[in-house]
Protein backbone atom coordinates (compact mmCIF):
# COMPACT_ATOMS: atom_id res chain seq x y z
CA UNK A 1 0.00 0.00 0.00
CA UNK A 2 1.37 3.38 -0.88
CA UNK A 3 0.77 6.25 1.45
CA UNK A 4 -0.58 9.63 0.44
CA UNK A 5 2.96 10.95 0.80
CA UNK A 6 4.31 8.32 -1.56
CA UNK A 7 1.62 9.06 -4.11
CA UNK A 8 2.39 12.73 -3.90
CA UNK A 9 6.19 12.64 -3.79
CA UNK A 10 7.00 9.24 -5.21
CA UNK A 11 8.27 6.23 -3.27
CA UNK A 12 11.59 6.65 -1.55
CA UNK A 13 13.12 3.80 -3.48
CA UNK A 14 16.67 4.79 -2.56
CA UNK A 15 16.08 3.53 0.97
CA UNK A 16 15.09 0.11 -0.37
CA UNK A 17 18.14 0.10 -2.65
CA UNK A 18 20.44 0.90 0.25
CA UNK A 19 19.13 -1.69 2.69
CA UNK A 20 18.95 -4.40 0.04
CA UNK A 21 22.52 -3.67 -1.04
CA UNK A 22 23.79 -3.71 2.51
CA UNK A 23 22.19 -7.10 3.05
CA UNK A 24 23.40 -8.70 -0.16
CA UNK A 25 26.94 -7.33 0.15
CA UNK A 26 27.42 -8.85 3.60
CA UNK A 27 26.63 -12.22 2.03
CA UNK A 28 28.73 -11.54 -1.09
CA UNK A 29 31.76 -10.51 0.95
CA UNK A 30 31.56 -13.42 3.36
CA UNK A 31 30.93 -15.79 0.45
CA UNK A 32 27.97 -17.18 2.37
CA UNK A 33 24.90 -17.31 0.19
CA UNK A 34 21.49 -16.68 1.75
CA UNK A 35 20.75 -20.40 1.18
CA UNK A 36 23.87 -21.60 3.00
CA UNK A 37 23.13 -19.06 5.72
CA UNK A 38 19.67 -20.59 6.17
CA UNK A 39 21.26 -24.03 6.59
CA UNK A 40 23.72 -22.72 9.19
CA UNK A 41 20.83 -21.08 10.99
CA UNK A 42 18.89 -24.34 11.13
CA UNK A 43 21.99 -26.23 12.33
CA UNK A 44 22.49 -23.74 15.14
CA UNK A 45 18.85 -23.89 16.22
CA UNK A 46 18.99 -27.67 16.15
CA UNK A 47 22.22 -27.84 18.16
CA UNK A 48 20.94 -25.51 20.86
CA UNK A 49 17.41 -26.86 21.12
CA UNK A 50 18.79 -30.36 21.61
CA UNK A 51 20.24 -29.22 24.90
CA UNK A 52 18.34 -26.18 25.99
CA UNK A 53 14.70 -25.30 26.25
CA UNK A 54 14.30 -22.59 23.65
CA UNK A 55 11.63 -21.24 21.40
CA UNK A 56 13.13 -21.30 17.87
CA UNK A 57 10.86 -18.52 16.70
CA UNK A 58 12.64 -16.06 19.03
CA UNK A 59 16.14 -16.88 17.85
CA UNK A 60 17.78 -14.24 15.72
CA UNK A 61 20.89 -15.03 13.73
CA UNK A 62 22.37 -12.27 11.64
CA UNK A 63 25.49 -11.37 9.79
CA UNK A 64 26.89 -8.01 10.61
CA UNK A 65 29.79 -5.98 9.36
CA UNK A 66 31.48 -3.09 11.06
CA UNK A 67 34.70 -1.46 9.91
CA UNK A 68 35.63 -4.46 7.79
CA UNK A 69 35.02 -7.03 10.53
CA UNK A 70 32.35 -9.60 9.87
CA UNK A 71 30.46 -11.34 12.62
CA UNK A 72 27.74 -13.85 12.99
CA UNK A 73 25.45 -12.58 15.74
CA UNK A 74 23.35 -15.21 17.44
CA UNK A 75 20.76 -14.11 19.97
CA UNK A 76 18.94 -16.91 21.81
CA UNK A 77 16.46 -15.94 24.53
CA UNK A 78 16.27 -18.79 27.07
CA UNK A 79 13.07 -20.07 28.57
CA UNK A 80 12.85 -20.45 32.33
CA UNK A 81 13.25 -24.19 32.66
CA UNK A 82 16.79 -24.86 31.57
CA UNK A 83 16.73 -28.26 29.96
CA UNK A 84 14.27 -30.01 27.78
CA UNK A 85 13.65 -33.14 29.87
CA UNK A 86 12.78 -35.35 26.96
CA UNK A 87 15.61 -34.78 24.53
CA UNK A 88 18.54 -34.50 26.88
CA UNK A 89 19.08 -38.18 27.59
CA UNK A 90 19.26 -38.94 23.88
CA UNK A 91 22.68 -37.33 23.74
CA UNK A 92 25.83 -38.84 25.28
Amino acid at each position, binding site marked *: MSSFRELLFGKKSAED*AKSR*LQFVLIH*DRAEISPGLFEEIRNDIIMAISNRLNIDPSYISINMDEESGERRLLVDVPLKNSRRPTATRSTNN
Partner: protein
Amino acid sequence: MDSVVITITSGKGGVGKTTTTANIGTALALLGKKVVIADADIGLRNLDIVLGLENRIVYDSVDFIEGRCKLRQALIRDKRAGELYLLPAAQTRDKTAIKPQQMVDMINELRDEFHYILIDSPAGIEQGFQTAIAPADRVIVIINPEVSSVRDADRVIGLVEAHQKGPAMLIVNRIDSARVKKKDMLSVEDITEILSSQVIGIVPEDEEILSSTNRGQPVVLNSKGSAAQAYRDIARRIVGESVPLTMPSTGSFWQKLFGRA
Protein backbone atom coordinates in the same frame (compact mmCIF):
# COMPACT_ATOMS: atom_id res chain seq x y z
CA MET B 1 59.47 10.95 -15.59
CA ASP B 2 57.27 10.44 -12.55
CA SER B 3 54.44 8.75 -14.33
CA VAL B 4 51.15 7.57 -12.92
CA VAL B 5 49.21 4.69 -14.46
CA ILE B 6 45.48 4.74 -13.71
CA THR B 7 43.10 1.98 -14.76
CA ILE B 8 39.41 2.83 -15.07
CA THR B 9 37.19 -0.17 -14.47
CA SER B 10 33.73 -1.11 -13.13
CA GLY B 11 32.70 -4.75 -13.31
CA LYS B 12 29.39 -3.90 -14.93
CA GLY B 13 29.36 -2.76 -18.55
CA GLY B 14 27.87 0.44 -19.88
CA VAL B 15 28.40 2.53 -16.74
CA GLY B 16 30.67 5.11 -18.41
CA LYS B 17 34.25 3.78 -18.29
CA THR B 18 35.10 4.81 -21.84
CA THR B 19 33.41 8.21 -21.62
CA THR B 20 35.17 8.91 -18.33
CA THR B 21 38.58 7.77 -19.59
CA ALA B 22 38.28 9.94 -22.71
CA ASN B 23 37.24 13.02 -20.75
CA ILE B 24 39.67 12.74 -17.85
CA GLY B 25 42.52 11.99 -20.25
CA THR B 26 41.64 15.01 -22.36
CA ALA B 27 41.23 17.20 -19.26
CA LEU B 28 44.66 16.11 -17.96
CA ALA B 29 46.23 17.01 -21.33
CA LEU B 30 44.48 20.38 -21.25
CA LEU B 31 46.17 20.93 -17.87
CA GLY B 32 49.48 20.64 -19.73
CA LYS B 33 50.27 17.02 -18.91
CA LYS B 34 51.60 14.47 -21.36
CA VAL B 35 48.93 11.79 -21.48
CA VAL B 36 48.30 8.41 -23.10
CA ILE B 37 44.87 6.88 -23.00
CA ALA B 38 45.10 3.17 -23.71
CA ASP B 39 42.12 1.09 -24.79
CA ALA B 40 42.27 -2.32 -23.12
CA ASP B 41 38.86 -3.40 -24.37
CA ILE B 42 40.25 -5.67 -27.08
CA GLY B 43 37.63 -6.77 -29.58
CA LEU B 44 35.20 -4.06 -28.50
CA ARG B 45 37.28 -0.96 -28.93
CA ASN B 46 35.49 2.35 -28.49
CA LEU B 47 37.88 4.96 -27.17
CA ASP B 48 38.82 5.78 -30.77
CA ILE B 49 35.28 6.64 -31.82
CA VAL B 50 34.41 8.43 -28.59
CA LEU B 51 37.48 10.61 -29.15
CA GLY B 52 36.74 11.06 -32.86
CA LEU B 53 40.03 9.41 -33.87
CA GLU B 54 38.59 6.29 -35.50
CA ASN B 55 39.81 7.20 -38.99
CA ARG B 56 43.41 7.63 -37.98
CA ILE B 57 44.24 4.19 -36.65
CA VAL B 58 46.97 2.31 -38.47
CA TYR B 59 48.45 0.09 -35.79
CA ASP B 60 47.11 -1.03 -32.41
CA SER B 61 48.50 -2.43 -29.17
CA VAL B 62 48.25 -6.03 -30.37
CA ASP B 63 50.31 -5.12 -33.45
CA PHE B 64 52.98 -3.85 -31.09
CA ILE B 65 52.82 -6.89 -28.79
CA GLU B 66 53.14 -9.19 -31.79
CA GLY B 67 56.06 -7.24 -33.22
CA ARG B 68 54.45 -5.63 -36.27
CA CYS B 69 55.22 -2.05 -35.21
CA LYS B 70 57.03 0.12 -32.70
CA LEU B 71 55.00 1.42 -29.77
CA ARG B 72 55.41 4.98 -31.08
CA GLN B 73 53.78 4.01 -34.37
CA ALA B 74 50.67 2.77 -32.59
CA LEU B 75 50.15 6.05 -30.70
CA ILE B 76 47.77 8.53 -32.30
CA ARG B 77 48.16 12.15 -31.37
CA ASP B 78 45.01 14.12 -30.58
CA LYS B 79 46.03 17.65 -31.53
CA ARG B 80 43.02 19.28 -29.92
CA ALA B 81 44.41 18.80 -26.44
CA GLY B 82 48.15 19.38 -26.45
CA GLU B 83 50.11 16.24 -25.66
CA LEU B 84 47.31 13.67 -25.75
CA TYR B 85 47.82 10.27 -27.37
CA LEU B 86 45.52 7.29 -27.94
CA LEU B 87 46.84 3.74 -27.84
CA PRO B 88 44.06 1.84 -29.63
CA ALA B 89 42.96 -1.73 -28.98
CA ALA B 90 42.73 -4.37 -31.70
CA GLN B 91 39.18 -4.74 -32.94
CA THR B 92 39.39 -8.22 -34.46
CA ARG B 93 41.00 -10.08 -31.57
CA ASP B 94 39.91 -11.13 -28.10
CA LYS B 95 40.88 -10.41 -24.51
CA THR B 96 43.52 -13.15 -24.47
CA ALA B 97 45.60 -11.37 -27.15
CA ILE B 98 47.53 -9.48 -24.45
CA LYS B 99 48.71 -11.20 -21.28
CA PRO B 100 48.98 -9.25 -18.02
CA GLN B 101 52.79 -9.28 -18.08
CA GLN B 102 52.88 -8.07 -21.70
CA MET B 103 50.57 -5.22 -20.70
CA VAL B 104 52.89 -4.31 -17.83
CA ASP B 105 55.93 -4.30 -20.14
CA MET B 106 54.15 -2.25 -22.80
CA ILE B 107 52.90 0.38 -20.35
CA ASN B 108 56.33 0.53 -18.67
CA GLU B 109 57.78 1.57 -22.01
CA LEU B 110 55.53 4.64 -21.91
CA ARG B 111 56.36 5.63 -18.35
CA ASP B 112 59.53 7.51 -19.27
CA GLU B 113 57.77 9.85 -21.60
CA PHE B 114 54.32 10.52 -20.15
CA HIS B 115 52.91 11.97 -16.94
CA TYR B 116 49.68 10.01 -17.01
CA ILE B 117 48.69 6.77 -18.67
CA LEU B 118 44.99 5.99 -18.39
CA ILE B 119 43.76 2.49 -19.21
CA ASP B 120 40.14 1.91 -20.24
CA SER B 121 39.25 -1.53 -18.90
CA PRO B 122 36.74 -3.92 -20.45
CA ALA B 123 33.68 -4.91 -18.42
CA GLY B 124 33.81 -8.07 -16.35
CA ILE B 125 36.30 -9.50 -13.88
CA GLU B 126 37.99 -12.07 -16.10
CA GLN B 127 41.28 -11.94 -17.97
CA GLY B 128 40.63 -8.66 -19.77
CA PHE B 129 40.08 -6.93 -16.44
CA GLN B 130 43.14 -8.55 -14.92
CA THR B 131 45.28 -7.48 -17.87
CA ALA B 132 43.94 -3.93 -17.60
CA ILE B 133 44.77 -3.54 -13.90
CA ALA B 134 48.13 -5.32 -14.04
CA PRO B 135 50.19 -2.16 -14.78
CA ALA B 136 48.07 0.18 -12.62
CA ASP B 137 49.42 2.40 -9.86
CA ARG B 138 45.89 3.46 -9.05
CA VAL B 139 42.48 2.09 -9.92
CA ILE B 140 39.30 4.09 -10.41
CA VAL B 141 35.98 2.28 -10.25
CA ILE B 142 33.04 3.85 -12.09
CA ILE B 143 29.64 3.40 -10.49
CA ASN B 144 26.12 4.31 -11.49
CA PRO B 145 23.71 4.97 -8.64
CA GLU B 146 21.79 1.73 -9.04
CA VAL B 147 21.90 -1.61 -7.24
CA SER B 148 23.58 -3.86 -9.81
CA SER B 149 26.35 -1.37 -10.52
CA VAL B 150 27.06 -0.87 -6.82
CA ARG B 151 27.08 -4.59 -6.17
CA ASP B 152 29.48 -5.25 -9.06
CA ALA B 153 31.67 -2.39 -7.89
CA ASP B 154 31.95 -4.00 -4.46
CA ARG B 155 33.24 -7.17 -6.07
CA VAL B 156 35.73 -5.23 -8.20
CA ILE B 157 36.95 -3.20 -5.21
CA GLY B 158 37.66 -6.50 -3.42
CA LEU B 159 39.55 -7.86 -6.43
CA VAL B 160 41.56 -4.66 -6.79
CA GLU B 161 42.65 -5.05 -3.18
CA ALA B 162 43.41 -8.74 -3.67
CA HIS B 163 45.72 -7.74 -6.57
CA GLN B 164 47.53 -5.27 -4.25
CA LYS B 165 46.22 -2.33 -6.27
CA GLY B 166 43.98 -0.84 -3.61
CA PRO B 167 42.39 1.15 -2.26
CA ALA B 168 40.25 1.76 -5.32
CA MET B 169 38.77 5.22 -5.76
CA LEU B 170 35.23 5.79 -6.93
CA ILE B 171 33.59 7.98 -9.52
CA VAL B 172 29.83 8.13 -9.24
CA ASN B 173 28.55 8.69 -12.77
CA ARG B 174 25.09 9.61 -14.10
CA ILE B 175 23.78 10.97 -10.85
CA ASP B 176 20.55 12.96 -11.03
CA SER B 177 20.44 15.38 -8.14
CA ALA B 178 16.69 15.94 -8.44
CA ARG B 179 16.00 12.23 -8.02
CA VAL B 180 18.51 11.99 -5.18
CA LYS B 181 16.70 14.85 -3.47
CA LYS B 182 13.43 12.95 -3.80
CA LYS B 183 15.20 9.91 -2.34
CA ASP B 184 14.40 8.04 -5.50
CA MET B 185 18.09 7.46 -6.31
CA LEU B 186 21.05 6.38 -4.17
CA SER B 187 23.05 9.39 -3.05
CA VAL B 188 26.83 9.67 -3.12
CA GLU B 189 26.76 9.43 0.69
CA ASP B 190 24.75 6.19 0.50
CA ILE B 191 27.27 4.74 -1.96
CA THR B 192 30.35 5.72 0.07
CA GLU B 193 28.74 4.27 3.18
CA ILE B 194 27.84 1.00 1.46
CA LEU B 195 31.23 0.56 -0.24
CA SER B 196 33.41 2.34 2.34
CA SER B 197 35.69 3.72 -0.37
CA GLN B 198 36.83 7.20 -1.25
CA VAL B 199 35.02 9.15 -3.96
CA ILE B 200 37.16 11.29 -6.29
CA GLY B 201 34.42 12.49 -8.57
CA ILE B 202 30.70 12.95 -9.03
CA VAL B 203 29.52 13.23 -12.63
CA PRO B 204 25.91 14.16 -13.34
CA GLU B 205 23.60 12.63 -15.89
CA ASP B 206 24.08 15.06 -18.75
CA GLU B 207 22.44 15.17 -22.18
CA GLU B 208 25.59 16.73 -23.58
CA ILE B 209 27.43 13.43 -23.24
CA LEU B 210 25.40 11.83 -26.01
CA SER B 211 25.69 14.74 -28.42
CA SER B 212 29.40 15.19 -27.81
CA THR B 213 29.98 11.46 -28.24
CA ASN B 214 27.98 11.60 -31.47
CA ARG B 215 30.47 14.17 -32.73
CA GLY B 216 33.60 12.52 -31.33
CA GLN B 217 34.35 15.51 -29.11
CA PRO B 218 34.84 14.89 -25.41
CA VAL B 219 32.78 17.46 -23.46
CA VAL B 220 35.83 18.80 -21.64
CA LEU B 221 37.13 20.21 -24.93
CA ASN B 222 34.59 22.97 -25.22
CA SER B 223 31.61 22.70 -22.90
CA LYS B 224 30.77 24.67 -19.78
CA GLY B 225 28.17 22.05 -18.81
CA SER B 226 28.06 20.28 -15.49
CA ALA B 227 29.52 16.95 -16.65
CA ALA B 228 32.43 18.75 -18.35
CA GLN B 229 33.08 20.67 -15.16
CA ALA B 230 32.95 17.46 -13.12
CA TYR B 231 35.58 15.82 -15.36
CA ARG B 232 37.86 18.86 -15.12
CA ASP B 233 37.54 18.76 -11.33
CA ILE B 234 38.52 15.08 -11.31
CA ALA B 235 41.59 15.82 -13.47
CA ARG B 236 42.64 18.56 -11.04
CA ARG B 237 42.22 16.20 -8.08
CA ILE B 238 44.34 13.61 -9.91
CA VAL B 239 47.19 16.10 -10.35
CA GLY B 240 47.00 16.84 -6.65
CA GLU B 241 44.98 20.04 -6.41
CA SER B 242 42.44 20.11 -3.64
CA VAL B 243 39.08 20.65 -5.27
CA PRO B 244 36.08 20.23 -2.99
CA LEU B 245 33.63 17.49 -3.91
CA THR B 246 30.31 19.06 -4.74
CA MET B 247 27.05 17.63 -5.92
CA PRO B 248 26.75 18.78 -9.55
CA SER B 249 23.48 20.14 -10.80
CA THR B 250 21.76 17.86 -13.26
CA GLY B 251 22.40 18.89 -16.80
CA SER B 252 18.95 18.91 -18.32
CA PHE B 253 17.46 22.09 -19.66
CA TRP B 254 14.15 21.74 -17.82
CA GLN B 255 15.78 21.05 -14.52
CA LYS B 256 17.96 24.10 -14.92
CA LEU B 257 14.97 26.20 -15.96
CA PHE B 258 12.94 25.28 -12.91
CA GLY B 259 15.90 25.24 -10.61
CA ARG B 260 15.10 21.79 -9.29
CA ALA B 261 18.60 20.46 -9.61
